[in-house]
């Protein structure tokens, strides 16, 4: 009984908190000063077609570095808590259909993930999304072949090298005197081309590799134990 009253109070509090957002919401015809600065700066200064990407990688680059660190800590925690036990037959043997189709699909899904993070500055998407798609391809491999063993050394090497290079890219900007995680360390190129927007494709490729390796390691620890 008391529990139910608490729940009702909690829901009422949430409604009180969130209702002003709905009631006071109004459509605006023009961007405010900060957003228009970002949109214009993304086109003129950074030559990046996708404004979201230029905000994530350049204007809020330090936040992204923190996000990557949080994901790394989460992976390390999962790997530390769930140690490999010697269990056999944890998953059922995969059906013929899954085995055949996964061997056909895995390469295509990995290619799509790479496309997503390499084109992060041109089309929607980026390192995090591309990394998760790559991890889902490896998940398909884990599900289709129960005796599959990933080489943990390679996963860890890919993850730590891409993380370290991300920091190195930031430090190069510091050495050149233009600021930490500044993307102007390579020539900006022409607007709308694959090799444009300075270091954004480099940073997003590194993030994509890192996220893909980390999530594959999590899935491997959780599901693919032999």
């Amino acid at each position: 009984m008391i529990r139910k009253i608490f729940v009702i109070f909690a829901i009422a509090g949430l409604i009180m908190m969130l209702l002003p957002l709905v009631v006071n919401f109004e459509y605006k015809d023009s961007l405010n000063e900060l957003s228009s600065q970002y949109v214009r700066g993304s086109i003129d200064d950074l030559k990046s077609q996708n404004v979201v990407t230029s905000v994530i990688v350049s204007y809020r680059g330090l936040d992204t570095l923190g996000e990557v660190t949080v994901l790394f800590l989460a992976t390390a925690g999962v790997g530390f808590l769930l140690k490999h036990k010697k269990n056999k037959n944890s998953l059922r043997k995969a059906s013929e259909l899954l085995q055949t189709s996964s061997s056909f699909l895995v390469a295509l899904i990995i290619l799509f993930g790479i496309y997503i993070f390499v084109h992060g500055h041109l089309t929607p998407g980026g390192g995090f999304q591309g990394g998760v798609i790559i991890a889902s391809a490896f998940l398909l491999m884990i599900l289709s072949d129960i005796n599959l063993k990933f080489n943990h050394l390679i996963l860890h090497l890919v993850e730590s090298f891409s993380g370290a290079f991300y920091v190195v890219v930031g430090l190069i900007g510091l050495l050149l005197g233009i600021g930490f995680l500044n993307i102007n360390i390579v020539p900006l190129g022409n607007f709308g081309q694959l090799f444009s927007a300075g270091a954004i494709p480099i940073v997003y490729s590194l993030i994509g590799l890192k996220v893909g390796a980390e999530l594959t390691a999590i899935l491997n620890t959780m599901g693919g134990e032999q």
Partner: protein
Amino acid sequence: MTLTIIIILGVIMIAAAFGAIYFNKLLAAIVSAGVISLLASVIYLVLGSPDVAMTEATIGSGLTTIIFLFALNKVRKENKK
């Protein structure tokens, strides 16, 4: 038109949220929690933010559901012993 889609999807999302709490089978609850994320990603897409929609669809409804399923598998196996 956009508002209609959002309201319909929102109602289904609330129903799925209640399902995730009240379903007796854990498997059904996990799938129902994944449905919430999938419909949320559709709403983001309708509202014009494909980047967030992609993140929500891949991480929220794809990876999280799979990790929950793996965890369920692990817990069941521990119980059997």
